[in-house]
């Protein structure tokens, strides 16, 4: 059960991030133009209220995908977690799972292009995934440190420290400069 649970989380994460717009529009082509037009008019094209948006163009569809993604992450990390050890294990795994689509690259690539992801959208997906990776890493670090003290002599702990501080710096850097 355990491995399949993580597999389901991983798969749903990937699908949500990359393929939902592509597949949904293909489905709507089959169901007829009216559904597709309604979808485009009310969900896919309109940007959300400008106070929520910030400086980027976010559409309602983007917001939906973001909410689903965040919901999936929170569920995967938090649902039915018994103790801090379990939290540590789960958040570490989810961080690594989130790293997989990140390793497709910061630049546009064939896979993203064949799913008809636009350049600006792809960059934002990459940034969101990176942010979640960092957040989960921090949760994992906090849980691990609260369970047992850091032991510098152990390579594992040194490695963990490097990764967590590195990812904090990545995130601070992206937030401060806010353009990619």
């Amino acid at each position, binding site marked *: 059960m355990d491995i399949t649970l993580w597999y389901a989380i991983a798969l749903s994460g990937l699908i949500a991030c990359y393929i939902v717009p592509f597949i949904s529009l293909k489905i709507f082509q089959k169901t007829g133009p009216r559904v597709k037009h309604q979808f485009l008019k009310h969900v896919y094209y309109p940007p959300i209220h400008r106070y929520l948006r910030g400086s980027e163009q976010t559409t309602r569809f983007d917001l939906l995908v973001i909410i689903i993604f965040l919901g999936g992450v929170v569920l995967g990390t938090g649902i039915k977690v018994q103790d801090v050890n379990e939290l540590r294990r789960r958040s570490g795994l989810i961080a690594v799972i989130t790293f*997989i689509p990140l*390793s497709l*690259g910061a630049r546009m690539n064939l896979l993203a292009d064949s799913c008809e992801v636009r*350049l600006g959208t792809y960059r934002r997906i990459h940034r969101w995934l990176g942010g979640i990776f960092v957040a989960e890493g921090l949760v994992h670090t906090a849980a691990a440190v609260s369970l047992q003290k850091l032991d510098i002599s152990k390579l594992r702990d040194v490695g963990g420290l490097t990764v967590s501080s590195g990812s904090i710096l990545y995130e601070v850097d992206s937030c401060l400069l806010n353009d990619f």
Partner: protein
Amino acid sequence: MGLLLLSLVTTLRRYSYEIYVWLHWILTSGLLATLFIHTTTKRTLAPSTVYLVTAVGLQIVMSALRFAQVGYRNIKSRRIFSRARVQTITFKRDSGSDILVSDAVHVHVRLPRLWQPRAGQYVYLSLPGLTYASFAQSHPFYVAWWYHDEENGNDYVVFIVQRRNGFANDLFLQARPCNQSPELTALIEGPYGKELKLESYRTVILFATGIGVAGQIPYVTQILEAYQNGEAETQRIALFWEIDSEGKSLGFFTVRKHLSLIFSSFRLGI
């Protein structure tokens, strides 16, 4: 050590985007390696190992794919590598001297292997010979227009690049008027991008700001071509182009001239 390197990232990025891009890539590989060290179990099928191996494998696959793609696009038997000419844009007046457009250049790239360019496509362009540092740089540009040179049988795509800091600035400094500009090796990665099918609409309204018109020109060109072939239902195309300053309006006249040269049989109200 990883900490020290990463702390440089924040300050460096402001000054040089390029170094940041490379550091991002290198440090991510370092992060992966550290993650491997960090995971405790050595079982091959443990979830963490499986995922890490997937991430590494994906990076390798994507790099290989990109390499193959660039190789396919740019290398052909008799003409190895694309060749680029960076040209200044000159507004030719009938009387008086020509005015040089001061904030944009054209980059004409001769392609060894043509794809059929469509509107809405962009490529990553890299000009390794431009400056000492430009061998590692690669930037996305929209394909503004394309043409076939009958004399030499070459196919060209053209990009309009606005002068800004960094790569675009280097391009501008190296630009020369037409026929005087030296040929540089170019590497094209692409084309990426999805095309919007606009030919089935009777009225098409296009909006552009500044340099963004480079992305709209191919749509206009394509609709007019389709109309010539009888495939388009479009009756009217309206292009609204917002420009900042008077100097940039000279670029507008060159665009207009380019369009009217190609489509002299249409009524272009500009």
